[in-house]
């Protein structure tokens, strides 16, 4: 992959993930109690911690998404994006293997699809994409430092 095409893929992925995170945060911001319930359903954090997650996470997603879209603080945003996507994958995987019959809560706090093989595939795709974005960002930075473009 040449430097320019790498840069195009990087920008497309960056904006794509930015839009994804921003869109995912809206429903959670508007219905934090439902989102807290969705987090609590994973049976990992307890009620109070789930509520803290519901207060904190949607705004982190929103800020990260906006940073990705507008190319602001890219280093931090790309890193948070990768961490978020990998965390979501781990959460969904553990719920699947524990046979928890729950809603994912990924994009809307309730009424979304339940955790199944398709949902896991979707999360693997997002996690892989976010890692690719992170690697591309590192390469992009190295290119920039070495003055290739």
């Amino acid at each position, binding site marked *: 992959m040449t430097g320019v095409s790498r840069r195009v893929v990087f920008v497309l992925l960056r904006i794509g993930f930015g839009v994804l995170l921003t869109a995912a945060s809206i429903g959670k*911001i508007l219905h*934090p*109690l439902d989102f807290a*319930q969705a987090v609590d359903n994973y049976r990992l954090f307890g009620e109070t911690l789930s509520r803290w997650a519901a207060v904190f996470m*949607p*705004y982190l997603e929103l*800020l990260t998404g906006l940073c990705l879209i507008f190319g602001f603080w890219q280093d*931090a945003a790309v*890193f948070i994006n990768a961490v978020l996507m990998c965390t979501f994958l781990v959460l969904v995987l553990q719920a699947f293997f524990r046979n928890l019959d729950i809603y994912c809560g990924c994009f809307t706090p309730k009424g979304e699809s339940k955790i199944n093989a398709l949902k896991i595939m979707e999360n693997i795709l997002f996690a892989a994409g976010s890692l690719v974005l992170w690697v591309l960002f590192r390469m992009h930075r190295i290119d920039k430092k070495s003055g290739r473009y």
Partner: protein
Amino acid sequence: MNTFKRLLLLGCISLAAGLLANQFLNEGIPWRLLIPCKPDRFIKARITYFDAETAYRISSANPTVFVDIRPKTDFQVDHLSGAINMPFVEYFRKPSRFPITDKNAAIIVYGFEFGSKKARLFAQSLVRSGFAQVNMLYPGFSGWIQAGLPVEGRKAR
């Protein structure tokens, strides 16, 4: 600014924005619900869960106050007869607004859906505030309607 500082700043801004916005949002999480409580086993044991028919029978035989925790707009459409409206978020923002002062009053809390988590939290909070007879209508308002029991309000007419 290096990456670590940016990460820290993004985290702090998100937390501050979340805490602030949730105090003003209609369905926000009030700060009182963010404080860790003691284990709930004792509190939970003091709440009685009723199905719709039992709640109706008990409320017909004894003086009972139904507390509807749904938003005002839903309450105005229809509610259980004689119920008072105390929206969930409003209560947790200012518990002193709760209109019942008699700590021995028989109270039945209900939300909309079956096993409403909000209704359960509300009932637990009432027990913590010293109310002696706190009950919950477990099937919620939807279960009450499904059971064909009477309601009042605009829609009921």
